[in-house]
């Protein structure tokens, strides 16, 4: 399951066009990685697709950092 973090980071790098080195677990999507509110919606959609899970809106709102995303997916991923 350790590759979940790598897969999440890869999606973030591709989607936001940031350097891999910037994508630390405590990096905030909006404040640190330059995402806008639609980007965060799209990231959640991309995570859902990559990991075959559904992230409900109330959970999605709490995913603010790379680490938040990894944590949620580790707790809910099927693959």
């Amino acid at each position, binding site marked *: 399951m350790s590759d979940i973090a790598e897969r999440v980071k890869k999606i973030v790098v591709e989607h936001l066009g940031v350097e891999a080195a910037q994508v630390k677990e405590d990096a905030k999507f909006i404040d640190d990685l330059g995402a806008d509110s*639609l980007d965060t*919606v*799209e990231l959640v*959609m991309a995570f859902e697709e990559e990991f075959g899970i559904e992230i409900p809106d109330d959970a999605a709102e709490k995913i603010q950092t790379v680490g938040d995303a990894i944590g949620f997916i580790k707790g809910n991923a099927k693959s």
Partner: protein
Amino acid sequence: MFDLSGKAALVTGASGGIGGAIAKALHKQGATVTLSGTRADALEQLKATLGERAHVVAAKMDDAADIDRLAKEAEAAMGKLDILVNNAGITRDNISMRMKDDEWEKVLQVNLTGTFRLTRAAMRGMMKRRFGRVINITSIVGVTGNPGQANYAAAKAGLIGMSKSLAQELASRGITVNCVAPGFIATPMTDALTDDQKKTILGRVPADRLGTPEEIASGVVYLASDEAAYVTGQTLHINGGMAMI
């Protein structure tokens, strides 16, 4: 120009005069269309006249679960959804002093809330594909008002404000959101007017005739096209000069 080959369109209220003309026009330009409405038999008839590239998904626009189902089934039938024409609408006319709560609420629910719900459901796929055309059929009365139609005018004005907001939210994703505002158009709805009523209305129309559903459909085809990619948050008035705004 205005080639829609390979595009997938959903038209609500397609069993009505204007909705049917819109579906036919999009189809003629090459789009695959899904026809929605409440009268399944009328939709099937229209589908039969269109032939290939046509699907039917009946749905009620005052039912949240039905609206989600409509979005899913339309996407499943066509493989995607590029163009959403929110044309479904009802009237419950009454002067405000006599207007019942349910007349007010029903019109807002179908014309405004239903449109928002369907658009929200369609957005996800459009965002992913970085392409979308949302065209909301509003009305001249949403801008000018009309006695006896406080509910309808409020809902139609609401569509314009909603469209401008969505346009700003979605523009960076290649999705445009616009309105078409018909004036008086020859449909079964206006056929019901008396000759005197028609005469009064035409006195306010510089073109001196009712519009046709096809003239509304042409505006929709334009807004749905690749050529209109830079047009968003606008309301296209098609009304023979009845109001110039």
